[in-house]
């Protein structure tokens, strides 16, 4: 395995880890005196970051980057569907609740 490939995987992993740690900062920003508070911004942020992480795992770790275009489109569609379903159920639930 050449160093370039190694480096790329390392960078992908670092990005994923940093995004995970980003959740900690987001979390503290939404808390008030230990109690969790509802926050649309944090929810949207969390869903989008999770989707971005999923896409990085698809493209870098699962090598969709080197795969035929149809697999790239299919996995992207999957990520989009997930984001739409999550935010959709969040906002519909919010309106109904």
């Amino acid at each position, binding site marked *: 395995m050449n160093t370039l490939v190694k480096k790329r995987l390392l960078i992908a992993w670092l990005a994923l880890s940093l995004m995970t740690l980003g959740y900690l900062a987001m979390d503290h920003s939404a808390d008030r005196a230990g109690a969790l508070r509802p926050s649309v911004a944090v929810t949207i942020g969390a869903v989008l970051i999770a989707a971005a992480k999923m896409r990085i795992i698809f493209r870098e770790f*699962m090598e*969709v980057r080197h795969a035929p275009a149809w*697999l790239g489109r299919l996995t992207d569609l999957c990520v989009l569907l997930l984001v739409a379903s*999550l935010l959709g*159920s*969040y906002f519909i639930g919010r309106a109904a609740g």
Partner: protein
Amino acid sequence: MTTSSVKEAEAGKAVPFVPGQPDMWFFALFETLVFTAYFVVYMFARMQHHEAFLQSQAKLSLSIGTFNTLVLLVSSWSMARCVKEARVGAYRSALTNAFLTASFGVVFLGSKIYEWVREIRLGYGFASDEFFSYYFFLTGIHALHLLIGFVVLGVVVHQLRSPERRSQNLVETGAVYWHTVDFLWVLVFSLLYVVR
């Protein structure tokens, strides 16, 4: 071969290929759809009892959750390295990475069990609270996928061990499964611990 792949091949780049069996990709996407359905039910229920969910969610330890996520991401990283090493014929290194993947998987499972015990000691069981029903269900069904992942890793190690086998296709197939377990956790984590 499509024209674009011909062009890439001429340009000296690798020809596009589907990593592993396309059949495992079918599984990965199908399971993602099933999980999406669970998530939709959870998100909707959450918004019906928003305050109660937030109060129960506050009992989770975000630091343990973050640790979990980082550990599983490391395991996925070693799995990706295992595939690349096996592809260039560095089987010893690939085996080491496969074992690293399994070890981080065990650490994840260990910290998961520690967390479950902690929640139950605090008085939050599967049936005691709506949020915790979803919590134990989603983390439990994910942990089950992880347990199956160890069987998959066993197949990968079995392939890497003997020169007569060493099917790169099966190694990649196993990796696709393992990464699927990884990104499903990334989703479960953000929905249980972070979403407000």
